[in-house]
């Protein structure tokens, strides 16, 4: 099945129910009515508010902290400094350690040294945020600035300032090499070798809701309740237990509505620990909501990396080896998810190459810690790989489309293990490539004479092909990487007396439409009406232990758990209904709100009656236990690999370098689409984030002062509605053989191809200038400079 998803909104053949339809979203009504419940909407009685004082320096010794009159200010209730935190907590734990790297003792407040601008140094709780901020202004902190380093490549040079002296030599946390075959021998013997250094910009995911927490402690009940804007409430609970030395049973973490996550809200941050410490000291609820200025400095950044990428090929275009040695800028500390790991996993893209080598070098600098962000390394490596494919094509005089097609893995090659060990499950990569080319009218462009258009602009088309890892290949795979979370999802289904099914999940709701998709799977498998399924998300006090919403993994894993739990619940439901209808369980079926006889649908019993009988234990067979509830866990055996090709058409003013993306086509395969409307939304939304990172977004640090120079919304240019080029989405639908229903993840794909496709289009338009773009973001200034060979 190929085409636009709107063309296939009817149920797939043989299906009469919910899966594969654009069911209306469960989440919408409350959000449309201003009735969502985000963290700052939660206001427990007698709550106090926290404000955090942060380092203005990228690197400095703290010589002293003088609280001055802050403690006497009316309304101030509690102040914490670094020494308090060191005596009361353990260092922050991480969820995805850098394999082979030393642990860094990252506490919620700085000790003797601050390592990035924005690092928390002191925190104050008062009757209002305003009063707490007043108090911060009364606190004198004596800093002694010390030399800093804000560029990862400079940090590796001899003599560079050391971010963690004694713990990490030369600012290199670790090198992680992977590969197969003998790429160096292949390179030496190759007809042609192209290589380049590609710089990927530091950006941030910028969810519209910043982070936030409300912490409440009842010492008598030994209950710490934490409302948090997080993608992973069960992992927040785990980490808080570790850092605060509390048993997990004393902690309940709740994420109700989350206003966007994108990877930034994975695991705890220093402020989460601080709010809990204050609340436990005061026996009063403490709220902290990050302001946007803080967000730009205190919430993880992403992407920044330098790739030295190399492709060796025969003169006929056959690729014989690929190598990539890259440095990721971790910032001053290791965050919960640290620097991106997927650049290594998919470094060879969709191409068939047996000899390959990839090495990740994780580098410390005096900048805000790097964390996960939608794509998690895949946009970065795609930019390097796909730019070089085009350069190879130009070098060999081969059409870039045909060069890609020649080297792509074919459906019959799959499953296939790439040189980094990733096992691509299935797909037709070339089909997506050809569809993208056709949609953008590639052949006509190639056939047209290379002259400026009537408006004086030069036109170019660029392609970018990719594979994308979605989900995780089992907990055994994660164990080898030291990850502190599982690969499974879990769910509890509970029948209620109204004839509905309550679904309890630890997957919080952050825009990804999991409530909708979960209800669709339950409806599909159990047979119950969609409207009779209610999803209760994000409360560790109600949901089974799970992993969480990240890595495009939720549906892949949760669909299995939802299916197993629905089947178990349905089997018992049918037995109880058959008892009521005085027939065999094999003679009845669930249909919407009733259970009915297969041979005589007029004979039925309402689900409400069956469920009530089960809950009461009255009117059920003597051998049956009362109750109707099922919990299931599911762990996929393998990751599923999404894939696709993007094509961009740009026009460039050859005098100024100003350019427009006039068309952007993405052909993509996420396997079976549970809800086509939601799939479109996920792909389109991620695509615009990818376009933002490709064309304008960049967190810039001043080399002299080490300070973030554009850390406000006023000068960090996330796309607004007029900035978005026309986007055309096309899909293929190759079910994955390794996941329930053949689902592949869909949340991150759009971030991957925009930068390379647009850069390739610009280089195509400007081929007569010999332009080769290797730095992001792609601004008119960058293009203009490249045209002039600077």
């Amino acid at each position, binding site marked *: 099945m190929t085409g636009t998803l709107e063309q296939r909104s009817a149920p797939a053949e043989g299906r009469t129910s919910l899966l594969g339809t654009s069911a209306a979203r469960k989440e919408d009504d409350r959000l449309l009515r201003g009735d969502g419940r985000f963290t700052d909407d939660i206001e427990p009685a007698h709550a106090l508010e926290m404000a955090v004082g942060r380092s203005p320096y990228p690197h400095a010794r703290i010589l002293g902290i003088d609280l001055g009159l802050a403690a006497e200010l009316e309304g101030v209730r509690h102040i914490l400094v670094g020494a308090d935190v060191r005596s009361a907590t353990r260092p922050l734990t991480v969820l995805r350690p850098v394999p082979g790297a030393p642990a860094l003792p990252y506490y919620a407040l700085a000790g003797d040294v601050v390592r990035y601008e924005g690092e928390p140094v002191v925190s104050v709780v008062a009757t209002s945020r305003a009063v707490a901020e007043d108090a911060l202004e009364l606190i004198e902190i004596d800093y002694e600035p010390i030399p800093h380093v804000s560029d990862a490549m400079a940090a590796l040079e001899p003599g560079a300032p050391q971010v963690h002296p004694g713990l990490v030599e030369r600012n290199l946390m670790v090198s992680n090499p992977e590969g197969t075959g003998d790429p160096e021998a292949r390179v030496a013997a190759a007809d042609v070798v192209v290589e380049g250094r590609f710089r990927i910009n530091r950006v941030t995911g910028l969810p519209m809701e910043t982070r936030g927490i409300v912490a409440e402690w009842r010492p008598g009940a030994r209950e710490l309740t934490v409302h948090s804007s997080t993608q992973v409430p069960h992992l927040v609970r785990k980490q808080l237990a570790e850092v605060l030395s509390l048993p997990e049973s004393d902690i309940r973490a709740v994420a109700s*509505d989350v206003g966007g996550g994108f990877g930034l809200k994975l695991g705890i941050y220093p402020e989460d620990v601080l709010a809990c410490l204050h609340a436990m000291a005061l026996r009063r609820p403490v709220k902290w909501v990050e302001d946007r200025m803080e967000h730009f400095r205190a919430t993880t950044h992403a992407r920044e990396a330098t790739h030295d990428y190399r492709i060796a090929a025969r003169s006929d275009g056959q690729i014989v080896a690929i190598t990539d040695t890259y440095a990721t800028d971790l910032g001053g500390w290791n965050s919960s998810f640290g620097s991106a790991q997927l650049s290594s996993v998919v470094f060879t893209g969709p191409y068939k190459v047996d000899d390959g080598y990839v090495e990740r070098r994780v580098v410390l600098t005096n900048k805000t810690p790097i964390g996960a962000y939608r794509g998690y390394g895949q946009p970065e490596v795609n930019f390097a790989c796909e730019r070089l494919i085009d350069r190879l094509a130009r070098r060999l005089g081969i059409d870039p489309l045909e060069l890609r097609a020649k080297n792509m893995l074919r459906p019959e090659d799959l499953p296939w293990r790439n040189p980094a060990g990733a096992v691509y499950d299935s797909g037709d990569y070339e089909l997506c490539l050809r569809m993208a080319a056709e949609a953008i009218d590639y052949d006509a462009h190639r056939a047209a004479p290379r002259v400026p258009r009537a408006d004086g602009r030069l036109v170019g088309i660029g392609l970018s092909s990719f594979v994308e890892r979605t989900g995780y290949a089992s907990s055994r795979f994660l164990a080898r990487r030291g990850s502190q979370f599982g690969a499974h999802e879990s769910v509890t289904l509970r029948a209620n007396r109204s004839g509905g099914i309550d679904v309890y999940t630890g997957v919080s709701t952050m825009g990804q439409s999991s409530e909708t998709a979960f209800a669709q799977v339950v409806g599909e498998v159990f047979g119950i009406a969609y409207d009779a399924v209610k999803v209760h998300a994000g409360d560790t006090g109600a949901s089974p232990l799970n992993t969480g919403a990240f890595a495009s993994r939720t549906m892949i894993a949760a669909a299995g758990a939802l299916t197993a739990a629905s089947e178990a619940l349905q089997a018992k439901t049918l037995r109880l209904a058959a008892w009521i209808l005085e027939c065999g369980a094999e003679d009845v079926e669930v249909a919407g709100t009733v259970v009915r006889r297969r041979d005589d649908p007029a004979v039925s019993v309402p689900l409400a009656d069956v469920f009530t009988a089960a809950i009461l234990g009255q009117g059920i067979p003597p051998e049956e236990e009362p109750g109707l509830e099922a919990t299931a866990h599911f762990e996929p055996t393998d990751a599923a690999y999404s894939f696709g090709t993007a094509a961009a058409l740009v026009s460039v003013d050859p005098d100024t370098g100003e350019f427009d993306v006039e068309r952007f086509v993405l052909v993509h395969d996420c396997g079976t689409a549970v809800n086509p409307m939601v799939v479109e939304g996920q792909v389109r939304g991620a695509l615009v984030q990818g376009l933002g990172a490709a064309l304008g977004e960049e967190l810039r640090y001043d080399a002299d002062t080490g300070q973030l120079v554009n850390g406000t919304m006023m000068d960090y240019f996330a796309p607004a509605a007029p900035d978005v080029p026309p986007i055309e989405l096309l899909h293929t639908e190759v079910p994955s053989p390794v996941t329930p229903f053949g689902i592949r993840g869909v949340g991150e794909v759009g971030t991957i191809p925009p930068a390379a496709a647009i850069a390739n289009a610009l280089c195509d338009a400007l081929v007569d200038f010999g332009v080769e773009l290797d730095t992001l973001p792609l601004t008119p200034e960058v293009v203009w400079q490249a045209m002039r060979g600077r």
Partner: protein
Amino acid sequence: MTDDVDVTVTVNGETVTARVPPRLHAADFLRHRVGLTGTHVGCEQGVCGMCTVLVDGDAVKSCLLFAAQLDGCTVRTVESLATGDRLHPLQQAFKDAHALQCGFCTPGFLMTVTALTDRGERLSEPEIREEIAGVLCRCTGYDPIVKAIARHLDATAADDAARAAR
């Protein structure tokens, strides 16, 4: 505090009287004093547009106003749109077009477009994009929002024309 100021505001048809600190901004006032948490705060510098409400019919960013400046004004927030359990046609248009994901920005768009709708114009797609440039969304990529607004403006204009014809 002695320098607190008295304000009387009509919010969603109800009169609210309060004594507020002079530095309290209007968005925080609506959220934390009036209890209307549908108005969201995303940047507190007038860029993101989450906090957009109607003040005397104009769409304004309430983080850039002090609560004290609302004295004597009529304010409408997102909570005023639906009637009972029935979504306002604009809300329904957003739902139909999948014009929201996390929903944090949605009230800002809804109130911006409510003011736009009151002008009674049909707008081209580029014009709609310019009109909503003051509200950011990080989830949808905007196209579904633009589509929802276009449909809503067209339907509203058609309704108005039909009413005028009667």
